[in-house]
């Protein structure tokens, strides 16, 4: 199994209620774009708020793309890593979570971040966005799962069941006592 994975999607799930208003993210991402000094190498915004259950509003970068994303299984802050990963698979997952964590913290700290969105702590979805190297197969799963489990900030890692989708995992926190 090729270990040179570059494309990983990491999504922190949110609770948002019915038909959330995404417009505040236009303001936030525009400000990020104007600053222009982020290592994600921002290129521009893209507005897909007109698509119910779609990719929402995103700020696309050469290295990473970040978005308020409504795709199944639900709303979340999605960091799509496109390049700049190195090392072992575990190293790559660690770096992906690090970047996602930084971007999530930054957006949550913005004054326009809508109050009705609530972070579901420890609830992540992870996708290997590279079917050529990592098809959605048991063989890929055997290679990936230990590395992901070691790098993930969550208690449980379960593989998605949809065989037509990308190789994907749900990460959940330990149940509270």
């Amino acid at each position, binding site marked *: 199994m090729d270990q040179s994975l570059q494309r990983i999607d990491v999504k922190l799930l949110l609770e948002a209620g019915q038909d959330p208003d995404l417009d505040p993210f236009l303001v936030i991402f525009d400000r990020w774009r104007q600053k222009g000094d982020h290592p994600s190498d921002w290129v521009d915004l893209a507005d897909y708020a007109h698509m119910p259950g779609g990719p929402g509003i995103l700020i696309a970068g050469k290295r990473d*793309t970040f978005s308020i994303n409504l795709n199944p299984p639900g709303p979340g802050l999605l960091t799509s890593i496109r390049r700049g990963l190195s090392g072992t698979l575990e190293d790559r997952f660690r770096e992906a979570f690090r970047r996602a964590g930084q971007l999530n913290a930054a957006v949550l700290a913005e004054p326009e971040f809508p109050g009705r969105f609530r972070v579901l702590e420890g609830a992540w979805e992870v996708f290997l966005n590279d079917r050529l190297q990592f098809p959605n197969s048991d063989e890929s799963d055997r290679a990936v799962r230990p590395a992901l489990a070691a790098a993930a900030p969550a208690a449980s890692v379960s593989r998605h069941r949809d065989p037509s989708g990308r190789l994907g995992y749900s990460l959940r926190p330990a149940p509270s006592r």
Partner: protein
Amino acid sequence: MPASLPAPVDSSAEWACLPEDLRQEIDVYETELRRVQAGLVDEKLFTEFRLRHGVYGQRQDRVQMQRIKIPMGRLSADQLTVLADIAEEYAVGVLHVTTRQDFQCHFVDINDTPNLMRRLAAVGITTREACGNVVRNVTCCPHAGVCSDETFDVTPHAHAMAYFMLRHSDAQNFGRKFKISYSGCEGHPCGLGRMHDIGAVARIRDGAEGFQVLVGGGLGALPHQAKVYSEFLPAEEMLPLAQAISRVFARFGEKKNRAKARLKFLIAKQGIDEFRRLVEQERSRLPRDPRWEGELLDAVTSLREGPLRPPSALDSAGTAGPGFSEWLDINVRPQAQDGYSMVEVYLPLGDITSVQARQLAEVSRRYVQDTLRTSVNQNLLLQWVSNADLPSLHADLRSIGLAETGAGRLKDVVACPGTDSCKLGITSSRGLAAHLSKEFANGMSGIARRSDLKIKISGCFNSCGQHHIADIGFFGSVQRKKNDTAPVFQVTLGGSMRNNAESYGLAIGKIPSQNVDKAIARVSEFYSREKRGDETLSDVVARLGKTRVKTELQEFMALPTYDEEPGYYRDMRQPWQYKRSIGIGECAGEVVDQAEFLLEDADRIHFESTLHLERSRYGEASAKAFEACKKAADALLFTKGLWLSDRYDTVAEFQKHFHAAGAFYRPFADNFLRSAAEGPSSDPERARLRVEEATLFIEAAQGVYSQAAGF
């Protein structure tokens, strides 16, 4: 070999599944990409080269839009699945359906494009000639084959045309793009024949299938209605006619002034009669091509579309879920074949997510047999749905968020990409369309499902959103007040898609972006008030006159100052101050002479010969060296008016035009002729000599070309 020289790509080990010719074509594309990145290929040449592979520079620096050709909009469930996958992995998880029945993905890294193309090729999709100065996607009425009004099914004819013209050597030297469409009937708008370079409209004469042929139509900044080239052309004459027109366009069409380079300007300049004479002359000279009949025969046998399930009646709507009746009324249309319906899947702004596309492919597998089509209205269509399946299909579409009603209605707004991604965009056409979409679900819901009005929006005057043929059209512009610039839309009223786009709308005046929704509501109300009988908006505008119509909209045209209303100085769905910024668009491509492409090919092949030499493969090295020289000779022969499709003998013609005429440095020309006579050699010394001779021959050919071209 110096480390900086990129080696030719050979993906045969990983991509053995691909047909050899397609695999090599994409390998060459990747090689050229690496060569331009290494500074070995002229940027302008590469721009047109990548455009001819569907790779288009976005407004934003350093990212690409990948356009994917879907001839006639026909696609299978497996193809839709792969499209979904590549949009997810290489773009932002959205597939956009265009007004030419293509798909587009945005924010693509150019380094991903070779594998993206290979994955598409594996399911029979090419991106070749989706952009650039070539024959673009051949469009066709999406209802073809199942429409009760059609004269006959034009699908195989459009298919034959698409694959005959694809990569055709006579269609590689245009000054601008070239668009062809097929319509199954005259009355309905689906094929939009009158706005195409060639519009073919089905007709039957004496029991034989044929076409009314329209030529020289086009929208853009200066729209032209197509002229009738022939009232009836036998179907088997369509491919040779298109080839002859291509040759005339390549020979006489404008190459320097991009704004005047479309076929419509050539016909306007020459007159239709002189144009017809030139085409007939060219047609009479064409060497017979077995593909003229072969492509159509192949299409007729390979495109047997039919149902997955037996015909049936829709039992009762009582068992159907919420929203079924309205969906049935708006999105479903009976087919010509009893017991079947076609179902239009409404896509807001022509967008579908990767997740939905994959789910839709899965749903379609349950009900139809690979009979999906994209439409020029930026929706998707499922043909051959057995009527009894409609309630469960509706439920399945609802479960994946694709059962929204509105296809073909007022809310089904068509928009080009505008400033979202196009370098030429002046205003945000998609932002306006998204805003209207929201309004149609809320304050304007009362008029959202009108079937007698249609809105189309372009972000600039170039009309990619086809605003000219909408009842209510808009194109982006700007207006200054004091020192501030506001985004506005010029409104055009009274266009018509009837009779294959029979009339173009008239510009009424500029309306600030922020007032467009109110203006639409007023036009709708005005039309209802003034309409007599079956009159279209075009009829009403013609009867009452432009001045009267303008009066209705006057109150929305005023632009307040920035101090009074700063919101007017923001574009739709862009909460920041508007700033006009346009670049050089790539829709006009780069005018690159075919000879330049052939010389670049010669260079690349020559480099391959040096690699063979380095690896001690002497036979291959000398063969490649000769192939490279032959390409360079073809480039020069092109400047003498010889076309590759003439199937001439390169060596003999080179001897006549250059060697005997003393127009090429004789020792190098002698070497080429000697290589041709001797054939490839496996002898190391001789192979090395051939490679070195090829270097000199290609250099000399470039010199001769530069001199002839006046560089």
